[in-house]
């Protein structure tokens, strides 16, 4: 289940950033149908990303692997998705860059750093 959880987290992050970049690119073109497809893709991938984010957090809670990084991840997802939903396509490039950057930093040890400094459980 640990592998499952990590894979789901990576997929969620990739979905969010990938869909944001894809839609931003498609919306720059003049074609309305391309933009419409981009919106559909973003909606689909955004939904999967949001639900996966909740699922990963729940899985970590159930298995006792939760720590401060779990809730920071949920917060970052909420802010990213909220910004895109409220501001619209103008926010997509910024959200994509910040989301991707956070995802890479998190996978490269950022989560452990958060837990070791502000964690409520001792990191395993």
């Amino acid at each position: 289940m640990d592998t499952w959880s990590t894979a789901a987290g990576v997929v969620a992050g990739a979905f969010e950033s990938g869909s944001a970049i894809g839609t931003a690119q498609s919306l720059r073109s003049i074609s309305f149908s391309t933009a419409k497809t981009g919106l559909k893709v973003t909606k689909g991938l955004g939904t999967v990303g949001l639900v996966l984010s909740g699922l990963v957090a729940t899985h970590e809670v159930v298995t006792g692997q939760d720590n401060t990084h779990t809730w920071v991840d949920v917060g970052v997802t909420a802010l990213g998705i909220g910004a895109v939903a409220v501001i619209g396509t103008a926010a997509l490039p910024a959200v994509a860059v910040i989301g991707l950057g956070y995802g890479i930093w998190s996978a490269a040890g950022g989560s452990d750093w958060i837990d070791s400094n502000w964690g409520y459980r001792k990191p395993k």
Partner: protein
Amino acid sequence: MFDKLYYIFHSSVKSGFGHAERASFLLSASVLFYSYSLYFVLVVLTKSRVFNTTAFYILFGAFGVGIIYGASKYFVGTGRYRRIIDKYESPRLLIKGKRFLYRFISFGLFLGAFVAFIASGITLAKYLNPW
């Protein structure tokens, strides 16, 4: 009640491409995370066990996807959002004070959903695996 809630979210979201879709997404995401929070709180209050099985996670995820797609189909797919706007008034005609109030309510509800999820999640974590 959901019509009025949708109208509040619709008035708060910046107009532009996919306006109705974005408002529906914001509303359904809030409802989804309040539902997850309620589930966490109920588990703690009733001292139930949480199933760590693949079937549980599939159900959990399907519920989330279902709520978001259901809301989109209900408000946007059926064109209901147009009737809601006709029923109240065009968001463009809203006075500044009312628009600010609607933004305050919708952003508060959206952020509140995630705060509730985090708070109930930490409560559940403490109940399942105390530290």
